[in-house]
């Protein structure tokens, strides 16, 4: 979209908290007084399958980001970035968690997982900027590996692409996580921001 549209693609594996990350970004957009459309995937796809969510901040009404239209793609898993690379352009910022979730077909030898160098080269060839981080380890450092999604939200925020402030995104995180986990999630968020900026 032209103008002030910011389109974020989130891709991952069922169970990684992709849906919650998308909802947090949607809530943050509302807190910042913006229009937002968030598309989610439910049902069958969640059983360990590839999961995609799209967050469109701005005046767009359609829930699906056009091809080559993503301003950022947040890959919760390396190959899940490449699975949606048709949504990116030379301007797209890629936030990639380098922690692999190996598909069963690879684990048992019937398919191959591409090398990290091959993945990075493809992203660099097709996209604008790659921010790679060990979100899983950073979440563990913050207090729980379950906060991997929040580390990635932090990194996306740290990339500067979002039309919302860090404070607003943090407010949205607090709204969406149980009270007793607010501190660990705030730490995870900050570690993500730091990783993107360094």
């Amino acid at each position, binding site marked *: 979209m032209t103008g002030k549209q910011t389109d974020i693609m989130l891709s991952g594996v069922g169970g990684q908290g992709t849906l919650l990350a998308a909802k947090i970004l949607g809530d943050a957009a509302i807190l910042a007084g913006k229009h937002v459309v968030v598309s989610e995937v*439910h049902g069958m796809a969640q059983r360990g399958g590839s999961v995609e969510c799209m967050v469109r901040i701005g005046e767009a009404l359609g829930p699906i980001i056009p091809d080559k239209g993503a301003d950022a793609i947040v890959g919760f898993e390396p190959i899940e970035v490449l699975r949606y690379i048709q949504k990116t352009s030379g301007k797209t910022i890629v936030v990639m968690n380098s922690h692999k979730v190996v598909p069963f077909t690879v684990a048992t030898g019937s398919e191959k997982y591409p090398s990290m160098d091959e993945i990075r080269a493809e992203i660099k060839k097709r996209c604008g900027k790659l921010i790679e981080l060990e979100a899983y380890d950073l979440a563990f450092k913050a207090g729980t590996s379950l906060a991997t999604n929040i580390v990635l939200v932090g990194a996306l925020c740290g990339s500067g692409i979002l039309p919302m402030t860090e404070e607003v995104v943090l407010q949205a995180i607090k709204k969406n996580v149980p009270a007793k986990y607010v501190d660990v999630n705030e730490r995870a968020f900050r570690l993500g921001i730091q990783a993107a900026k360094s």
Partner: protein
Amino acid sequence: MDVLAKGGKALLLGNEAIVRGALEAGVSFATAYPGTPSSEIADTFSAIAKEVGMYFEYSVNEKVSLEVAAAAAISGYRSLTCMKHVGVNVAADALLTYAYVGCKSGHIIVSADDPGCHSSQNEQDNRYYATLASLPMLEPSTIQDAKDMTKEGFEISEKLSQPLLLRTTTRVNHTRSVVELGEMKAPKPRGTGQFDKDSLLVTVPSVARARHPILLKKMADAEAMAETSKFNKIIEFAGKNAGKVGIITSGVSYCYVADVLREFGIAARVLKLGFTHPMPRKMVAEFLKSCETVLMVEELEPWLEEQAKALAYEQGIKTKILGKSTGHFTRLYEYNTDIVRNGIGKVLSMPEQAPGENTSVKLPSRPPILCPGCPHRATYYAVKQAAKGKSMIYPTDIGCYTLGRAPPLSMADYLLCMGSSVGTACGFSVATNSTIVAFLGDSTFFHAGIPPLINAVHNKEKFVLAILDNRTTAMTGHQPNPGTDKDGMGYEAPAIPLETLVKGCGVEFVKTVNPRNLKETVRVFKEAMDFPKVAVVISRSPCILLKGIKKEPKYEVDQATCKKCKVCTAQFACPAFYYEGDKIKIDESICTGCSVCSQVCPFTAIKAKCEGC
């Protein structure tokens, strides 16, 4: 919960917005059978019903859910019934005559269609049900529409004394967006309704004949309402002059149309239809006359397009009507901005936009799979062992267990719909000489498995029915079912015992196994296959995703004992296994400790991890 927020703006899922709209209209009664993409409507009602003081139930199937709510609506309760598109097929028998009978208080029937088959066995277009049954229909485009139309739908339904179809699609049900909230109305308490008897409520043939003209009159009234409805409007988009081009659209397609016109700065008139059945013929005719060319943009079937053409023919309107029949759009799958852009581009002679290129890196696939520790995998493995050397047919059913279709399990040969495993097993048992084991889940058995089982017994058919009883309705998000001890409002409820039910159907061989005991499960399935009549094996073990499941010690592969025979990875195929070089290992972070792999291993190389060692 955001859906109960006092006012202001909230980020609501389409399905939550439908619930909110219903609450603002004072809905008092809701019924459902879960099905993607409709499930969160029911789940939201389930979560809030007690708090807001309304009635909610997960009914045994869609037909029953419609009947239950029809009685409530004729007794003075604003009611809502929701289901996925194929659920309407199940409810259709009740629906088509319900349209004759009508309602007293407003009744909204939500049909959640699934263009693109995200989670469905077909992509049927349920707008034809509005035509077939003669029901007024609303189709939301945005999440705000979903709330507003649900609220207003009760008024329309009540004015017409006619149930109303709210037809949504996945991209409305499962999209979140900003919704302006209104005030909620208190529901009518349970047991305070009044049923006024009327001989016209008993649809014997003479009544049905009397009802049909009343129904047609209601549809004429509905058409008049559609002509002035706020949901049908012309929106002028500013930009480069494109000649007298108009677009008629409905549902989520409107969103793509609006985005394309805005992005490319194209001047066009758009007729956005929300109250789509009956079609506001005057409004559409006037719109057609005001344009030289009109493009119809609607997902799936040319439902609006064919009506617009018929109307143009009747009224001698010469406007060019373009759409699916002219190759501008496809009848397949869901649309998006790119597809709609290229469709509009063909009319305006814009160059076609190439799709984004997929990666040149070869990616491993990542389809949805049975979870680590899933009891279905254990049952499948056991049946495979019991069936060795036999020619087998495995009719399957709707639920997580359909995922057993994937190799190496490959335990699914034929599937139509809810309950079809049992019905088709009847036919296969007569038509073929194979051994037949049909699979269906507990919720699916209650839903549609009982009549075909009775059919099998009475017609002396011979097969094994495996009821995969995981104590929940897992695929759609763990809703209770009649076999569990909680109802849809969270109250204690009598659980219907499957064993008694199956015996009551006349089945003589009924045995229950725990699939986590592999040897015993194999033995019972062998016995069932040898039984000369219908045999039912209830394979009972709770879904490992259910809350409150006891944590068990994880398992590990003893590398010294492992002979790398690969039975665990190539035949049992729990996703917790992985290779490290040529070593087979178990991913501790996802192992549930179900122990079945340790029973599968021919060399007892898989052992429980000793806690604290």
